[in-house]
Each structure stands twice: as C-alpha cells, then as structure tokens.
C-alpha cells in the first residue's frame, strides 16, 4: 500500500507538497501571520547558510531517516507499527545505559555495543505488540501507541530516578563515555557519523527489499497475506514477526544514534514526536527506503526552519506538527486520486489485492 513506481511516486509527492504548502499558507494567514515571511524565515533557517544546512537540517534529519525507514518497512508488510516513538525511547535508554556502564571498554567495542543495544532494545519493545498480534489477535495499532506512552513515561522515570545524573539536580542521565560517542562526519560541524550510518541502512534496506527472499516475502505479505500463502506458501506470521522486529530495531537505532551522536545523555522529552512524524516521512517517500533519505532531509529542514520561524517571525514552532499532519493527509488524498484515475483507465483492480491484512485492527 502506498508504494509506487518511480514516476507516480514523484507526482504524488510533489502534488502533496504543493497542496500542503497552500493549505499551510492559508492557515497561517487565517491565524494572522504573514505566510511569505514565515517561508523566508524557514528557508534561511534550513538552507540559508552552509552551517545551518549541515549542523541543523542534516543533523535533525537523522532521527527522521531511521524512524522513517522503520515505518516504511513495517507498512510495506502491512504491519501498522505506530510505535516508533516508544521503540526509539527504548533504544535511547539502552544506549545510554551501555554507554555509561561500558566506560572501561575501548571505542571499537563500546560504540558498536551501544548501537547494537539500541537496536535490540527497540526490537524488544516491538516484540510485545508483535506477540500480542500474532498470538492473541490484538491489532497492533492501539498496542503500539500504548507502548509509546509506556516508553516515554519509563524514560521520564529513569531520568528522575535510577539513572539520574549523580548530583541529582537535572532530570537527565550523566553523559556517556567518550568512547561511546559517534565522531563528527564533517569536521567542525555538529553532523555526526550517525547520518552516514542512517543512509547506509537505507541503502541496505532497499537492497534487501528488492533482491532478497525476505524482501520478496515482505512485499507479497504486504500486498495480500492470503495470496502470499495461496500462491507461494509464505507464512505471513513469520514475515510479520520479522518485519515488526526489524522495524523496532531501526526505530531503536534512531534513539541510540541520537544519544551517541548528539545529546550524549538521555533526558525527558528527548523526542518531540519523531516516531509519529516518521509516518509522514515514510508515506511521502512512497515507502521507498532510498527516497526516505530525501524526505527525511526535507523534514529535517522543516524542523530547522520551524526554529527560525519562531525566532524571526514569531510563529510558534509547534505549527510544524500541524504541517506534518497536512503532509500525511495530502499524500493520502493525492494517492487516492491517482489510484482512481489509473484504475479507471486500465483494468479493474484485482479482488485479492484489496483484502485487508487483518479485518479488525482495533
């Protein structure tokens, strides 16, 4: 669902962005702001200088990239993982714990350990809703969302309690060891190697989806679990479980990379909702991992620009959340309109392809 071949994806994406820009401008205007000034401030904040682009836009794009991949791979298999936010927190918690406790280890051991721990923790966080779906028949939409709230509050508890920095003043952990930190990617900037790691993950994921047996199974199950079984004896349950865990691991890695590359400590509200924005990132990229790199940078620019917009034009940065929602709605609408046109022009859609992976998703 929502994946397309190259040209359709570009058309849907461009049309969706244009629609979003128009609606956002109207909303800002209704709110009494000057849309042109807002756009100018956003542009300068995101792309105005090389420093802004590298140290703010690209840095901000890293969590979007990894969580966007998490959502893309899940949606490809028809797994409605809305839980990237909680999985990200699980990864961040594991990363900070390993990064502090493993201070005695050399960097070539500790740094990979931090990132692997983050991925494993994210996968573990996803395992609970995955098992609830497969063993108990509880749809994953609500359970993954509930797990987000558990994760956010658990992280808040840790930074106020057992993991609080030794002086006990600030609600955050102490900093991870130097050996646990990701080095800079561009010297003199805040951009860390995590960006390269994330881009590499996108390429690997694209290759796996396109060329491996598992990738084929993911696409088959996503198109129709019943047809996948009937035509190829593909066990949808096993594919769903593997995809769920991979998705959770990517989201967990997002949390680990943020800790190891940028903040070096866990604090309350580390993520302002990246796990939800990830849905917009993935949909705009038509669930294509390589395209997610582009849309993640776009959303990084949006976040970077939002800060500038608040400083220079006095528009609350939280507007960006509404804009993200608009992007999702615009993609859904243009996608639907394109689909209807294509269908009208060609053959009627096949029946099996439209069977929902699971009737009750509550």
């Amino acid at each position, binding site marked *: *669902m929502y994946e397309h071949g190259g040209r359709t994806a570009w058309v849907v994406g461009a049309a969706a962005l244009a629609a979003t820009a128009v609606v956002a401008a109207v*909303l800002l205007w209704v*709110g*009494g702001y000057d849309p042109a000034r807002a756009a100018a401030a956003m542009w300068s904040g995101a792309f105005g200088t090389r420093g802004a682009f590298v140290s703010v836009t690209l840095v901000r794009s890293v969590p979007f990239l990894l969580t966007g991949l998490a959502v893309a791979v899940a949606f490809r298999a028809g797994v*409605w993982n*809305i839980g990237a936010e909680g999985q990200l927190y699980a990864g961040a918690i594991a990363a900070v714990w390993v990064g502090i406790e493993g201070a005695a280890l050399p960097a070539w051991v500790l740094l990979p350990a931090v990132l692997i721990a983050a991925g494993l923790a994210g996968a573990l966080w996803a395992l*609970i809703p995955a098992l*609830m779906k497969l063993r*108990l*028949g*509880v749809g994953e*939409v*609500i*359970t993954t*969302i*509930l*797990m987000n*709230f*558990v994760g956010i*509050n*658990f992280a*808040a*508890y840790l930074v*106020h*309690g057992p993991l609080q920095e030794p002086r006990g003043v600030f609600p955050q952990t102490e900093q991870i060891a130097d050996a646990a930190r990701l080095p800079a990617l561009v010297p003199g900037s805040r951009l860390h190697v995590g960006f390269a790691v994330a881009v590499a993950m996108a390429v690997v994921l694209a290759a796996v989806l396109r060329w491996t047996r598992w990738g084929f199974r993911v696409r088959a199950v996503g198109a129709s679990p019943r047809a996948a079984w009937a035509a190829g004896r593909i066990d949808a349950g096993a594919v769903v479980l593997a995809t769920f865990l991979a998705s959770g691991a990517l989201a967990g890695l997002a949390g680990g990379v943020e800790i190891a590359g940028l903040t070096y400590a866990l604090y309350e509200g580390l993520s302002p*909702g990246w796990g*939800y*924005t990830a*849905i*917009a990132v993935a*949909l705009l990229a038509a669930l294509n991992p390589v395209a997610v790199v582009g849309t993640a940078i776009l959303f990084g620019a949006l976040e970077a620009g939002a800060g500038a917009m*608040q400083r220079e034009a006095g528009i*609350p940065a*939280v*507007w*960006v*959340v*509404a*804009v*993200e*929602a*608009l992007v*999702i*709605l615009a993609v*859904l*609408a243009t*996608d*639907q*309109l394109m689909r*209807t046109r294509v*269908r009208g022009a060609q053959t*009627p*859609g096949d029946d099996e392809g*439209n069977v*929902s992976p699971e*009737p*009750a*998703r*509550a």
Partner: protein
Amino acid sequence: MPETDLVLFLEAAVRLGVPLALAAMGEAITERSGIINIGLEGSIIGGALGGALGALATGNAAAGVLAGAGAGLLVAMVFALFSIGLRTDQIITGTAVTLGGLGLTGAVYQARFGATGTALTLPTLAPMSVPGLSQIPWIGSALFDQAPTAYLSYALAPLLWYYLFRTAWGLELRAVGEAPDAAQAAGVRVRWVRFWATLFGGALAGLAGAHLALAHAGTFAENMSAGRGFIAIAVVVLGRWNPLWVLVAALLFGAASALQFLLQALGLDLPYQLFLALPYLLTLAALAGWVGRSRAPAALALPWPKER
C-alpha cells in the same frame, strides 16, 4: 484506611472515567458503523481547547461544553471527509488527524496565550449534587456529586444501547458496519450513515475534552488529552461495542488512573512517572486478556465501496 481516602479515590475514579466514557461511547457508535476513528485523540484535544476558549469568551462553562462538542465534531469531520469521502486508509488518516489536532491546538494556544503558557483560569463546571442519591454511603458522592457531564454519560449509555439494539435506525447502523453491501442493497445510504456516526463520535469526544478542561483540570494545557483517545478505543473493545459495558469499562479505567490517590493514601509511594505509565500498561494487559473473546464489526476499518 480512613473512609475519606476511599471516597476521594472513588470520586477521582468517576471524574477521570467520565471523559473516557463519553469518548468511548461515541467511538462505539462510530465503530458499529464500520469506521475506526484513531483521530479520536484529536477530537478530544480539540474539544478541550474549544471548551476552554468557549468558556472564556462567554464566561459560561456550559457554553464552553457546547463549544467543545462542536470543536470535536469539526475535527472528526476532517477525518470523515478523508476516510469516508475519499476512502483513504482509516488508520493513517486517524493518526494524521491526531497529529494535526495536537499541533493546531498547541499553535492556537501559544498564539493566544504566549509560548510560556500562562496558566489559564477558566469558569469551571461545578459539581451538582443529586439530592438523595448523593447521600448513599461510599459511592453516593462519587457517582452523584459530579459535573453535569458525568450525568450525561450515565444517561447516554442506556439511550445509546436502546438506539443500537431496539430501534430500526440502530439496526441500520449495525448493518452498515457488518455488511455494507447488503445494507446498501436494502436501501441504506451506507456512507451517509457512517459519516453521521463519525461526527457523533467526534462530538462526544469533544465533550470529553471539554470535561477535561472545565470539570477536571480547570485549565487548558498542550497535549492534555494525554493518550485518552487511544485508551478510549481500547475501552470500546473491552466493552464489546455495547454502550452499557463501555460505560462500566470506562469507569474501571478511571479507577485505574485514580489509583495514584489510593496508593498514596495507603502510604505506598511509587514514583510519579510510573503512575503515569500505569493506565497504558493496564490497558495493554486488559487487551491481552480480553480481546480474543470479543468480535469487532465485520466491516471495521475497510474502505467502502471497495471499488469505484
């Protein structure tokens, strides 16, 4: 334990259960028509801000409640236009509507009251004591010394039950959610019914938000809905899409959220953040133990008509 602690706990349980009950009963009607509205959270936060602004503008909490219901309905209308009108995926549309609701209410609030968020003092919805009933020992004041929105939820449960299971309209609504093709063949306007059921659910979620702002908190805060929309959707499952059981389940979850007060009274001092996580954990546990035994409407979450 002193009696007053238990009474305070029960009062808090009902006060916290009422918004869940209102939102979940509305969602039960929506889901009976075959639409799952994950954007409920957006309607709740919209209702909270609408309620706060309405009460501020008129100086009247009752007017605020109406404004809240209207705001919740408008948010649900966005969801309905996309998911029913354009037949977009209900899960993703609902997620977007929730995000949009949280973002826009935050933006409007900050624009109006400053980024630091001046603490608002609103005309509140005062508790109204029901003569006689509120004198019942233990549960009397908990159930019958509450804001008017609580009584609305008690009244709605049997009314909605009667509508769903004893009227021709209710039969139409359920038919649309179970077998839309058959319902259409019988002359029911499937999308029309779904549209109104979704708006009704949004209005009740808006009421829930207004209750939060005007009867519970006495102020508006960004993200104050705090995931209640999602818990309400779980409550619908636990209440088996039956308004009467939904009310019971919602009050039980209100009690879970109010446990904080009870445990503190017992001298058990769990960290605050773990208390905050408790309702979500309990919801997960309840879903795990319960869901296999209840059956959702057959056409739930499926776009209709299948082909255009």
